Each structure stands twice: as C-alpha cells, then as structure tokens.
C-alpha cells in the first residue's frame, strides 16, 4: 500500500515536472487535516472533541472540497505526551497523507510536533498551545501560531491589572516549563510597569491541594496572586482560594490562563471577579453568537478560544489552498501570509513572517451570579488589547526567520 503510494507520488511528481509550471500544482490527493488534541485528560474540555467539531464545521462551510479535491478530517489523542504526539504525526504524514496538523494544546507536545512539521514541510496550525517560543526560538516556516500565546496573556492580564493598581504580585506557578514561562513573562510586564513581585512558589504538577501555597500567598500580602498554571491546577487553586477567604480578604486572583470551560467547571460563585485575557468570547457580537450557537447545539458547552481558533485556522488554510491552487506546505503558508484574516473571530488579522497571527486580544472579567442573566453569560469585556501591544514585536524576536534591519 505504501509502495503504491510511493509510485503514485513519483508518477505525479514526474507529471508535475513535465507540465512545466513549477508553482501551482495540486497533488491530486485529498486534503487531509489532522486534529491532534488532548481528548481524554486535563485539556480535553479546552480543545478535544470540540476542536474536531470546529475543524469539521470549517470544512463543511467551505463545501467539503477545495481546488477540486475533497477535504477530510482525522483526529487523535496525544495524551499530553510529546512521544505520543510525535509518533502520531509521523505516522499521519508518512502513512496516511495528512497535509496539515491542527490544535495541539500542551506546549511541550506542540514544540516537539513543530520540529517534525518543519522537517516534513507540512503545515502546522497551532491553536491550543501557548508557548511564545513557537514563534520565537522554535519558529518554523510552516508553523502558524493562530490563537494566543504566553506573551499575550502576560501583557493582557498582567498589564491591565497593574494599571488598575495591582502593583504587588505573588505567583503560584506550576513547576514546569510552561508555568515558568508564564510567570517570567508576566513578572516582566509587572516590573516594567512599576510594580513589584513579592515572591513566588513552584508547585508540582497535578497537585491537588493548594492550601499551603495559598496561605503563603496570603501571608505575602501581595495585592494580586498570579496563578501561573492551567487546567485542573487553576480550577483547584481558585476553588480553594474561595475556601480560605482570600478574595474576601482583599487580595485578587489573576488567572493567567483561564478558559471559559474552566469557569463553567468552577461555577460563577467561585470564579466571580477573576480577570482573564482571551482571543474570543462567544457573546461578543452577532457573528460570534451565530457561530457559537451552531457549536453549542452539538456540544452543549460554550466554545473556547482554542476551538474557535481551530475553525478560523482551518478556514484560512483552505482559502489559501483555493487561492494558490497548490497543497504544497510552504507555498500555502506563503499564501496565508498574503491573505488578510477575516472571520467571526478575527478582524483584519495578519500572519507574520515568524508564524505569529496578529490579532486583537480582549480583557474579560467573570461576572457574579447576580450579573449573569442567561446560560453561559459569564464574561464582561473590560478592554481590547490591540495586536501590536499584545504580541512580541519583531524587534525582540529570537526567531531566525525574522530579518533584522
């Protein structure tokens, strides 16, 4: 079967060479999009089967085919392990003809997959992962960091809170690379804005009880307690903070990475007042509401920015294929850079040469139970953070693809 595929590819390549036009050529095979996410563990609600649905919706809205070939969606669970993610992606590309991989929450997996996609010159549409290194040290010509990153989160939440008077901070950090990156980026913002970091504590991953660390935060008397963790760790910290009366004692919690699914899990009573940065909220305008209604009809949950991002990324990818009439990875990404990004979630977004999608980010605050009038009415929008402020400027980039003037 693989041998036949090999022959077919050689045959097609020969035909392509014959035909003379070097650039625009579809390989003739269907476009396969692989949704790689965490389907069963901590981040399953953030991406997971919702991401698969979003990708399928994008394909359907494009009519199920592009430039004359059908589009298919496959999916798999990387279980938050780089080994598993890499193995799946290699198998997809080598054996199943997958052209693009989408989503991949968990930065460690995304970084590993980015290496493979770079090697194989296939398109990587990152929605779930946060590490800003994906467009920094680890950037790739076929990597597209679509939704958010740690820099945006730090500048959004960190910057806004300092402006509101939150000038002393204490961090509760998940003891792994992502947590440290988030703390580092936010601490940078805080100190540059004139604030002070009073202390921090590193917590082992998957720790159930935060009471000791919350107590340390309480004793530091910092105005803001920054939670540099994600998923279940964040939920636990917030839940237990409520128990110890931290918020009623005058300190504020800053969830540096909070999704609407976390708020759904916690309930408004525990989460109210929490400030967070997001690229998307279902209730922002008519376009977001219309799309989210279609989504929620199937999942009974509000879409997260990761899932909305998967839709946007897949749509833009398919549009680029249609415009460039090729499914060759680097060429499609070049086209994606040329086309402006406009959909229900993004207005006039642009794909930068380091792979970063420039989009506006938004600051939200979780409503109190009294303020919430209907189902999933969770957030009120506090501010818009324009793209140039939200993401690392090219002048500070460590990406080798960026030409410094």
């Amino acid at each position: 079967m693989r041998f036949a595929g090999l022959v077919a590819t050689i045959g097609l390549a020969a035909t392509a060479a014959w035909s003379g036009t070097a650039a625009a050529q579809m390989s003739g095979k269907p476009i396969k999009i692989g949704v790689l996410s965490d389907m069963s563990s901590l981040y399953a609600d953030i991406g997971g089967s919702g991401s698969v649905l979003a990708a399928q919706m994008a394909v359907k809205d494009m009519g199920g085919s592009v430039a004359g070939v059908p589009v298919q969606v496959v999916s798999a669970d990387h279980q938050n392990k780089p080994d598993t993610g890499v193995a799946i992606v290699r198998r997809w590309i080598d054996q199943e003809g997958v052209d693009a991989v989408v989503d991949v929450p968990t930065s460690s997996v995304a970084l590993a997959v980015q290496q493979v996609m770079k090697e194989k010159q296939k398109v990587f549409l990152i929605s779930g992962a946060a590490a800003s290194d994906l467009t920094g040290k680890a950037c790739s010509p076929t990597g597209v960091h679509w939704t958010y990153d740690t820099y945006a989160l730090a500048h959004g939440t960190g910057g806004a809170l300092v402006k509101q008077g939150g000038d002393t901070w204490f961090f509760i950090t998940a003891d792994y690379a992502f947590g440290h990156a988030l703390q580092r980026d936010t601490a940078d913002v805080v100190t540059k804005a004139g604030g002070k970091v009073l202390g921090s504590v590193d917590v082992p991953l998957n720790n159930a009880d935060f009471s000791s660390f919350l107590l340390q935060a309480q004793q530091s008397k910092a105005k803001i307690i920054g939670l540099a963790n994600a998923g279940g760790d964040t939920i636990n910290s917030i839940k237990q903070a409520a128990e110890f009366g931290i918020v009623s004692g005058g300190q504020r919690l800053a969830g540096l990475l909070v999704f609407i699914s976390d708020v759904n899990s916690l309930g408004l009573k525990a989460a109210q007042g929490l400030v967070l940065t997001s690229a998307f909220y279902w209730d922002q305008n008519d376009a977001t509401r219309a799309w989210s209604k279609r989504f929620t009809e199937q999942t009974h949950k509000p879409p997260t920015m990761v899932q909305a991002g998967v839709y946007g990324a897949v749509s833009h990818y398919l549009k680029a294929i249609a415009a460039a009439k090729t499914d060759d990875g680097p060429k499609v990404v070049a086209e994606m850079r040329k086309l402006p990004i406009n959909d229900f979630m993004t207005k006039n977004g642009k794909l930068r040469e380091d792979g970063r999608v420039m989009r506006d980010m938004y600051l939200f605050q979780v409503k109190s139970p009294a303020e919430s009038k209907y189902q999933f009415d969770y957030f009120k929008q506090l501010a818009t953070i324009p793209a140039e402020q939200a993401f690392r400027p090219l002048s500070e980039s460590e990406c080798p693809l960026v030409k410094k003037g």
Partner: protein
Amino acid sequence: MFGAWHIAIPPLPALMAQLLIGLINGAFYAMLSLGLAVIFGMLNIINFTHGAQYMLGAFCAFLLLNQLGIGYWWALAVAPILVGAFGMGLERLFIRHLYHLDHLYGLLLTFGLGLIIEGLFRQEWGSAGLPYSIPDALTGAHNLGFMFLPNYRAWVIVASLAMCIGTWFVIERTRLGSYLRAATENPTLVQAMGINVPRMITLTYGFGVALAALAGVMAAPIYQVSPLMGSNIIIVVFAVVVIGGMGSIVGSIVSGFVLGLIEGLTKVFYPEASATAIFVIMAIVLLVKPAGFFGRAV
C-alpha cells in the same frame, strides 16, 4: 539547577498555619492508608484498587447529589455502603482466587481492576474535574489568630480522627476484631470453631473499601472530583503504609498524619520537592527498618 531553597524560616504563626494544613492533608492520608492497612493486615492483599475506590466514593457523592438530590450528610453514609458492597463483589469474583499465590499477583490484579474502573469513568466523564460544593453547614471559616481555618477542613480532621480511632478500637479491642485477627493468623482453626472465615474476609475487604470511599466523599468538596484523583494519590498512600508498617493499623494512622505534617513543611522550605519527599522517606525507612515503624518483622 534545582528550585529555590527557602532557607528563611517563616514567622511562627505562619509556620503553625502550614503545619495545620499539613495535618489536614495527613488526615486524608491516614484514612486512606488505614483502609489499605486493614486489607493488607487481615487479608494479605495489596489493594491497588484503593485509589479507584476512593474515586468511586467521591463520584458516588457527586452522582447522589446531581441525579438524586441526596446531599453530603447522607452521602457520607450511603456512598461507603454502595462502594463497599461493590468491593465485596470484586473480592468474591476476582480477588479470592489469589490468596494462595505470591503477593505480586494480588497487586497486579487489583492494579488492573483499578485501571478498568478509572478508564471507564474517564471515558464517560473526561479528566477535568466536576464541581461539588461544601455543605452549607460547614462553609465559612474561623479566625484562629494565626490563620483563618475553613470550617470544612476542621471537620475533616475531627471526622477522620474519629474514624481512625473507631476502626482501631473495633479491630484491637472488640470481639469481632479479635475473630478477624485470629482468622488471619490461623484460618483453619477459626473455621473449625464455626466462624465463617471466607465471609469475614469478604466483609473485611468491604470495610477497607468503604473507608476509601468515605475518604472520597470527604475529599469531594475540597479537591476536584475527577477520574484521575485516585491514581494521583495511590502511590503516596502506599508509601505511607510502608512507612508505618504494612500490616499495622496504628502505624498507618500515625504515619499518615506525620507524613502530612512533613509534606506541609516541605511545601514551605522546598515546595517543588513536596511530591517526592514521601518517597525519599520511604526509601530510607525501607533500607533501615523495612518493617516500618510499627510493622511486623519482615
């Protein structure tokens, strides 16, 4: 290279607060290791399903509340009975076939059963946690001067101490307990005296499982109710049991609380290592006094 050592000793009130937190965590360790110790002490089975059974207790409370509207206080009684009964079923169907074999088989079997239970629940409920609120009567906190102690956490210490002392009393000081202890030492003789030993064994296993489930119900309001909650805690509890002495009831209670305290201190001085500290202690204990502090000689 390693995380920052917090050499500075915090002020005394802060330290006392941390110790109290450690004691509360220790209460959970004590309850869970108690169940394990009872099962190992009486049945010589290393019950690796214990984590899953703890999770079942928490889920039982969650489902009772969300499907049947049955609240926390009833769940404290109902969940252990339901899960205990399930445990007795497991013993009857699977575990009893292994009593004549090496310990390892019991361990592997119960580990497998734990995987099945956890996998099924994960398939149905995912891995994110489910909310369960603190019962109204126990919300709020009391100002102890050096810290605000949430009422629910105070309840946890009291209830678990009661549970532990009660269990110890039943096993060491009552007639029923003496039958159990005799049956472990010499089942044939006890059987010959007309006592239904297999049934006692089944009931004992059920009791150990019920203890785990009870711990699960008590954990539900403060930790996340999640299919992963058992596997996260099981090897720590094992370490506690080993340190206390594998068959010893007193050992597991004492070491549960003490290790909770030590873990609490580690969280102050070297927080990244707080998950590993218990294993270091276990390694040391195993090398120096493998029977554990209170255990029978190896």
